[in-house]
């Protein structure tokens, strides 16, 4: 999996591409920890290029969202593919995480 960082409005956007499986999930958690350490609080996860997510990836999403919320910030998820959307839905993540149709809307 590749993680590409950029800035949009007041949000730090992490564009995820490829497969967020159990091998790749630790890299995402480390990336969010590193952002938190530099004071970043508003993170948008752009999932438009995310082909696959397993429960290990969902765990990394949940942990990241909890940490950002505890730091007074927030995580927003944008542009889920239909397959990833289904996994969010079956996991009840559509109600606990903030999900937007586009990265632009998530970074408002």
């Amino acid at each position, binding site marked *: 999996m590749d993680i590409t960082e950029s800035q949009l409005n007041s949000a730090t956007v992490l564009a995820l591409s490829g497969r967020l499986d159990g091998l790749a999930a630790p890299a995402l958690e480390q990336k969010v920890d590193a952002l938190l350490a530099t004071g970043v609080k508003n993170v948008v996860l752009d999932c438009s290029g995310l082909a696959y997510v*397993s429960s290990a990836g969902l765990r990394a999403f*949940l942990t990241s969202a909890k940490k950002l919320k505890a730091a007074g910030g927030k995580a927003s998820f944008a542009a889920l593919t239909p*397959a990833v959307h289904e996994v969010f839905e079956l996991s009840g993540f559509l109600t606990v995480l903030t999900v937007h149709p586009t990265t632009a809307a998530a970074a408002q």
Partner: protein
Amino acid sequence: MSSSTLLTLANDLAEIPRLAEAVEAFCEPHEPTMKDLMAIQLALEELITNVINYGYPDGLPHTFTVDLSSPAPGCIRAVITDDAIAYDPLARPEVDTTLPLEERKIGGLGVHLVKKLMDVSHYERRDGKNILTIERRLNRAD
């Protein structure tokens, strides 16, 4: 002609993406949707991750198998057979997916997703082996 693929895996998480590729190659002639592929890859990742992480507490190298087949047109079956410690992951209590963020437990989702995404999930202990069978009808409406 019908075809099945027998994969022999090491107890190493690096097998996850390799297995995903083999699943894609096996399913391709059956014309799966993206959702189908993701569902089957995800179910297998969840189950083999547990076998790899918890099944072999001796820490030594072991192998186990994943057998891919199509028991009927438009249906994919995977059978995981391991000689790891006896464990039925399907017997675990249901997770509550309606709790708010603060109360959600980190983990336990994997088996929940397996059951939701598969049409069949079945555990059996036979001849000292764990035998987990999962099946999905391709292109199902959901």
